[in-house]
């Protein structure tokens, strides 16, 4: 019986250890300034999530690891492109690491889900790349560092109607919420300039054969509006080229592909001539862009993708806000600082309005025969909430 008791004690001890061992008990400098980063390092957004994180790291390095003489801690987590995981990791960042502000994530689902929690805990979330309307309207601590999905889609609509002179458009989009919002944004811009949407198609996730949708568009519009993110773009562009569709492609957002020279290399000449709104272009002639591109290239050996740029900017915003509010400020002051923020970034002059939606310079690129996304136009979209809906207009 004695032996048995001893055994039980051992079992008990082991289980206790197993449960109570926590990897986060590493002692952290008491007065350190803590910023959390939440990036899609695994899951279906993994490629662009990595870029965003790399961009963020460059921003931190440029800050030299300190902020106003205080040690700067940038704690990043993998959200796994998965809402539950994002929630867990955010809880951990906020309640364990006690971060003051969070950069990321990219995945709209995660942003939306985290918003409510962010409000509860009064932790600002600087999203990459862009918040969704529902998210912005609902969650008072979520900041869209790169506008909303609609505000990103908007300028392409204007450009297509005004500069490219298209009268009619037909759309093909991935049946994800983000897809619906980008294309709605395009439609708003396009119709505001007298354009007309003839037909809208949504393809289910995991569609590898885009031809049924491409042929259904029947070449009957002036342009083909597509939002096919990530690997869908590979099927999309290749089969668009194969069918020799007459309608030129315009993208209300590049889906993490066409704005990225690396991706274009993988895609080949199928993308040449396509127009696309990108969050950021490494060719942009904006303040500090040269330095950023240089630093990024030096660190990672490739040109920064749009998401890398967005990650960089969002992180800068986080640091700038803390500077402005002061290291020992309350969360409320931090939020105020963010709303009043005005800074010159690689996104051009950037500021948040009272609805926490950033106004910044959105480049529109055209893919050159050398597969370079060359900037052909730049717009600044102003988003305002008018009785529960977001209205868009162009800054002149």
């Amino acid at each position, binding site marked *: 019986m004695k032996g*048995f008791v001893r055994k039980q004690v051992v079992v008990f001890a082991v*289980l206790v250890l197993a449960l109570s061992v926590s990897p*986060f008990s590493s002692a952290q400098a008491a007065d350190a300034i803590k910023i959390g980063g939440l990036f899609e390092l695994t899951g279906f957004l993994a490629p662009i999530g990595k870029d965003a994180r790399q961009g963020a790291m460059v921003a931190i390095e440029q800050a030299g690891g300190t902020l106003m003489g205080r040690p700067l801690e940038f704690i990043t987590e993998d959200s796994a492109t998965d809402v*539950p995981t994002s929630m867990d990791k955010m809880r*951990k960042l906020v309640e364990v690491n006690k971060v003051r502000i969070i950069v990321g994530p990219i995945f*709209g689902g995660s942003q939306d889900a985290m918003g409510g929690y962010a409000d509860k805990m009064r932790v600002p979330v600087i999203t990459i790349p862009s918040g969704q309307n529902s998210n912005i309207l609902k969650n008072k601590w979520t900041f869209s560092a790169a506008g909303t999905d609609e505000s990103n889609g908007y300028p392409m609509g204007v450009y297509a109607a005004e500069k490219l002179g298209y009268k009619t458009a037909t759309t093909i989009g991935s049946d994800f919420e983000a897809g619906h919002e980008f294309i709605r944004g395009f439609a708003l811009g396009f119709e505001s300039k007298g354009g007309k949407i003839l037909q809208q198609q949504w393809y*289910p*996730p995991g569609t590898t054969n885009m031809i049924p949708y491409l042929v259904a568009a029947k070449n009957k519009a002036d342009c083909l509006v597509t939002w096919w993110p990530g690997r869908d773009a590979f099927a999309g562009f290749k089969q668009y080229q194969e069918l020799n569709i007459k309608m030129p492609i315009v993208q209300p957002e590049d889906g993490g592909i066409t704005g990225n020279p690396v991706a274009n290399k993988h895609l080949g000449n199928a993308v040449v001539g396509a127009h696309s709104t990108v969050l950021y272009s490494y060719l942009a002639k904006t303040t500090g862009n040269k330095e950023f591109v240089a630093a990024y290239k030096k660190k990672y050996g490739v040109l920064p993708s749009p998401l890398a740029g967005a990650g960089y900017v969002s992180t800068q915003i986080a640091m700038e806000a803390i500077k402005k509010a002061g290291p020992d400020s309350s969360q409320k002051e931090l939020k105020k600082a963010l709303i009043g923020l005005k800074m010159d970034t690689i996104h051009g002059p950037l500021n948040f309005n009272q609805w926490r939606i950033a106004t910044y310079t959105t480049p529109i690129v055209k893919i050159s025969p050398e597969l370079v996304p060359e900037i052909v136009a730049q717009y600044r979209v102003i988003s305002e909430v008018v009785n529960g809906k977001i209205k868009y207009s162009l800054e002149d």
Partner: protein
Amino acid sequence: MKFNKGQLLVFTPAAVLVIILVVAPAWVDISILSLLTKILIFGLLAMSLDVVFGYIGLWSFCHAALFGVAAYANGILISRFDITNFFLVAPLSILAAAVAAAFLAWIALRMSGIYFLLITLALGQMIFSVAFVWRKITGGSQGLINIPYPDIGIDFSSAGFYYFTLIITLLCGIALHRFLKSPFGYSLQGIRENETRMIALGFNTWRHKFIAFVVSGAFAGMAGILYTHYNGIIMPRGVDMAASGLIVIMVLIGGAGTLWGGLIGAGVIYMLSYYVSLVTPERWPLILGACFVAAVIFARGGIYPQLCRLWNRVITPKSGPANPEEG
């Protein structure tokens, strides 16, 4: 069932584990607590699956979908119709899951074995597709978001919700345990062992399977309700065949036909996933896959029976026969 000291000893690990779970919030940090909550929820789901999977031997591949039906019902009632009272919403959601289960069973019980697996897989994907396409109600790919903690009159901390989950999971577990120990529960084992004989003995086996599937679906629904409150969100991604597959894996790793094995399986999978993806997120799938293979090679029949055998050896110097029913 003679009740001697040995019998009592059999229960000690369970008791110890429960005690640990009860005092856990005192030591562990928030993310571990959240992890434990998740394990309890999916443990309950796995246990509900085991009723049909392990005890009848119906290889259901749609339990994430049944779980999803209740989760969505819960989310829709709360976020679309502002009916928040837990004691009103939960029964309705469970009812939804049970009805869905009844319908699926009515179709799927024409098959058995691998074909039952296939048709339930397809039916589950149907439910997933509806959740994905019907944007007005289900919120499409984004699902339903910002679902608050259950409204039972007190407001929850994450620890509070952990206890809420713990209590419900244990109660459901005990209920299922009793259910499986009842004449009806045994009849399910009888069907697994020898259906023809059961018929010849006067059992209407179709009805037994049908009822069992509905019961199982209802408990899966309970897990789904807890899940929406735990996550504050339910998305199609969470109810597709990959999710169903993971639940099956939990049951198999824990030990099919052992009820509590489901809880163990969920624990193993999520503990691993948590700690591994801290070390090397990119390699997590590799290790997960390796675990499946290892489970088959080293823990055939599941971990839980192995543990029971081990414990029996501990408490009886001359190793008596393992008794996986206890624990």
